């Protein structure tokens, strides 16, 4: 794949939030305002790039049996560094993100990309993948936050918007509104990609971190399990 392709796929075709449906918890929690969404997006992107680089660089050294604990240590290390830096130099943003900053450690996007991409690609490609996926996460957060803040609070990044500030839809700033906007955004992205994106190999059954454990690692059995699942729907 071309380098630009690796970078751009995370923005829409394989957007981690709207297509892969990963990182839903921080997306819903921090998209109530544009500022917190921006902060979370940048923090997660920094961790994603650094962890992808480290895991790719160590991919030939890490034994398969301990790869998940190794990934968790690497990711937790970078998250704690970002957390300490934010607490020191951006204290208001640190407090705004609260517990969700520490929860980047268990963000499925980061562990998912480590397992599905970084551990089998060169450092440069893994860094580009981290950047692309991080930007995709950031873009998704900003889209969600813009809709929720503009219509839910009548402001954008804290700046009041005339007319809208007096005609808000408060439910958009609450959890049900988050799910509502999330569903609409998934539908829009699915319509744009014509629903073809989820068939891609990198995030199908085969790319799943638990594929080896569930015994459906081969493409044929994955395909079969997909059909079985469809027949049960």
């Amino acid at each position, binding site marked *: 794949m071309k380098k630009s392709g690796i970078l751009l796929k995370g923005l829409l075709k394989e957007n981690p939030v709207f297509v892969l449906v990963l990182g839903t918890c921080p997306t819903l929690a921090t998209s109530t305002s544009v500022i917190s969404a921006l902060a979370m997006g940048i923090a997660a992107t920094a961790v994603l790039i650094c962890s992808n680089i480290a895991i790719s660089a160590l991919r030939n*050294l890490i034994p398969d049996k301990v790869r998940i604990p190794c990934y968790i240590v*690497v990711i937790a290390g970078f998250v704690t560094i970002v957390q300490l830096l934010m607490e020191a130099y951006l204290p208001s943003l640190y407090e705004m993100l609260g517990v969700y900053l520490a929860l980047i450690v268990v963000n499925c996007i980061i562990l998912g990309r480590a397992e599905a991409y970084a551990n089998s690609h060169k450092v440069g490609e893994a860094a580009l993948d981290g950047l692309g996926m991080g930007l995709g996460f950031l873009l998704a957060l900003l889209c969600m936050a813009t809709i929720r803040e503009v219509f839910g609070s009548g402001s954008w990044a804290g700046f009041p918007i005339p007319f809208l500030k007096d005609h808000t839809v408060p439910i958009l700033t609450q959890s049900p509104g988050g799910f509502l906007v999330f569903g609409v955004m998934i539908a829009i992205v699915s319509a744009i990609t014509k629903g073809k994106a989820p068939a891609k190999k990198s995030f199908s059954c085969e790319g799943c971190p638990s594929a080896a454990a569930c015994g459906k690692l081969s493409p044929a059995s994955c395909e079969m399990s997909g059909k079985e699942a469809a027949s049960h729907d």
Partner: protein
Amino acid sequence: MKKEYVKCIVVLTCICLVAAVLLAVTNFFTSPVIAANKEAAVKASLQEVIPGGSFEELDLPENAPGTVKAFYRETSGKGYVAVLSTVSQYSNGDMGITAAIDDEGAISSIAITSYFESKEFGRTTYPQKYYGATAETVDTVDVFAGATYSSTAFRNALADALAVYGTVKGGD
């Protein structure tokens, strides 16, 4: 097989050590800044609970509970301020509270300096439930359900502040 296990242990240990060194270096540079930020937040909270006040830090009594980190007297007689820090089960950091106590021994104002739970809900209204509470009545304040650890921690911290107030006033 044995070799494989040794390799697993060595690699994981090395990664942990490198991560620990990186964290230690980051902590070395950020901890003074974080401490200064916290001190500035406490100073700002003193002005929040008693606006325009000037404060004199008092020595804590020997038997002061660990939750009470500092105790101040407003020099023009507007009351006292306790700086509190308590643990909260569901968050990744301590809960920081600054509480003003008037000359009648009742809580007159509360500012929260650090809180990592669902801060959008009740951050303003919840502390206000304790306004007017004294050492005798603080346990009877009707909190939401009283079922969460943080509610109990919050109330216990305020009770500790009122206990220290009692000791300080008794010694005046």
